């Protein structure tokens, strides 16, 4: 194999830096143009279609995952809390964990895997089969017609999916705690009601899921639009969507949690 000189390494490092900055610039311009470039005539119809394929089609995985995670939380919480004689607090533990953390975070991770990868592959495939060029040549801006409805659909549907995830999770947790483990129903719900604050917990969870929705959908549509229009290019872009979106969600979750709940 050819040896790389020090100068060559510095050059490659510089080139990689320039590429990263250029990609950030392109993706920002892309986002601004798609969001503020004006709507298309049948924009509402396109949005509804995307809300269906991005949001409604993700419902099954969100509901099933939410249910199991709620049930597991309840089981784990019960076994730990019983040691301290506080098993009546399992309701508040399940609710707070879901509303503050697992609802927004797991929904975003699942959304990146199901809808995000599909968005990237779909737009990448449109690019490789020249459908985007074809649209542009008909005088229709692909950013308005293809990208904008998908972005808005992601922004709208993910926070709703996160709420559904938390609700189903709490229901699953209640089922296990009350019907199976024998926690008194009154104290399960009463503890939850008294400890969950709308502003601190519910609203902060929603804010988190709005931020995640923005980042995950942006990454997904940009990776599709910017990919190499080949089979390998689409495959790499789809992988990048899942990896970048997951890392971004986990990193942002730490920052948001520190800002919302950190006492400093």
């Amino acid at each position: 194999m050819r040896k790389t000189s020090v100068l060559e390494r510095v050059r490659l490092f510089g080139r990689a830096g320039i590429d990263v900055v250029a990609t950030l610039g392109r993706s920002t311009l892309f986002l601004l143009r798609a969001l503020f470039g004006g709507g298309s005539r049948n924009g509402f119809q396109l949005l509804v279609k995307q809300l269906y394929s991005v949001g409604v089609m993700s419902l099954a995985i969100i509901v099933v995952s939410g249910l199991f995670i709620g049930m597991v939380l309840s089981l784990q919480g019960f076994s730990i809390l019983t040691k301290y004689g506080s098993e009546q607090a399992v309701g508040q533990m399940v609710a707070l964990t879901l509303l503050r953390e697992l609802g927004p975070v797991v929904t975003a991770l699942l959304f990146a895997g199901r809808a995000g990868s599909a968005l990237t592959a779909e737009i990448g495939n449109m690019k490789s089969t020249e459908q985007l060029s074809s649209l542009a040549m008909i005088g229709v801006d692909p950013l308005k017609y293809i990208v904008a409805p998908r972005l808005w659909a992601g922004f709208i549907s993910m926070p709703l999916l996160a709420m559904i995830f938390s609700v189903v999770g709490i229901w699953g947790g209640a089922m296990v705690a009350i019907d199976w483990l024998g926690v008194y129903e009154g104290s399960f719900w009463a503890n939850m009601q008294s400890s969950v604050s709308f502003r601190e917990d519910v609203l902060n969870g929603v804010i988190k899921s709005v931020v995640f929705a923005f980042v995950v959908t942006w990454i997904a549509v940009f990776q599709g639009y910017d990919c190499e229009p080949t089979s390998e290019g689409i495959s790499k872009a789809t992988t990048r969507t899942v990896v970048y979106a997951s890392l971004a969600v986990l990193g942002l979750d730490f920052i948001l949690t520190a800002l919302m709940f950190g006492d400093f």
Partner: protein
Amino acid sequence: MSAENPYAVELKSLSFKRGERDIFTNIDIRIPRGKVVGIMGPSGCGKTTLLRLIAAELRPSAGEVWVNGVNLPTLSRSELFDMRKQMGVLFQSGALFTDLDVFENVAFPLRVHTQLPEEMIRDIVLMKLQAVGLRGALELMPDELSGGMKRRVALARAIALDPQILMYDEPFVGQDPIAMGVLVRLIRLLSDALGITSIVVSHDLAETASIADYIYVVGDTQVLGQGTPDELKASEDPRVRQFMQGIPDGPVPFHFPAANYRDDLLGGR
């Protein structure tokens, strides 16, 4: 503005680079209004790139691209999309929208750019599909069509809005002899009957020469020759003669630039 200008498209001192590689160096091309003009040249010489430059899908490294009296690289994004309503492009793959059936593909430009009632859209779509011989296929999805049929549907879609300039990227590839004959006549007819300016990018010499009023031969980053098909056939320029007569090697190299063949073969030892 556009009616006074005898040229629908003018490329002035145009250069284009892909990375470090020159695709075109300072070329001038003029496409007369209402004529069929062939852009010919060996594979990989940048014919499709030239179409994409005319359609302003690519920006030139230097030079001007005038279409209907407007220098396209100076336009804003929205002005460019408006301008493109005057053009139609038939892509090599057809580039049909895979989630729409044949009827909806052809109706698409009419739905997004006009307020025509549904009955009129239906009539126009049927007329365009009849012209390409695929009226009976209006309910089929793109994945149910052959490559040649896809391109004919794409042609029907490209002429749906009756553009002033129509660009064809290798329209004859993959067509059976009957469809080829129809296509050749259709391109000529669109130009003669509707005054559409047609730019045909192709390396099919016989078909292009049979319909083109004027031909540009491009290669080696330059315009190698230009003229009517008869002028080009009679050309003494060795580069043009090589292409027109299909001689494998000559002043226009068949091989992509490479190191010495012998050195390359022995280099690993």
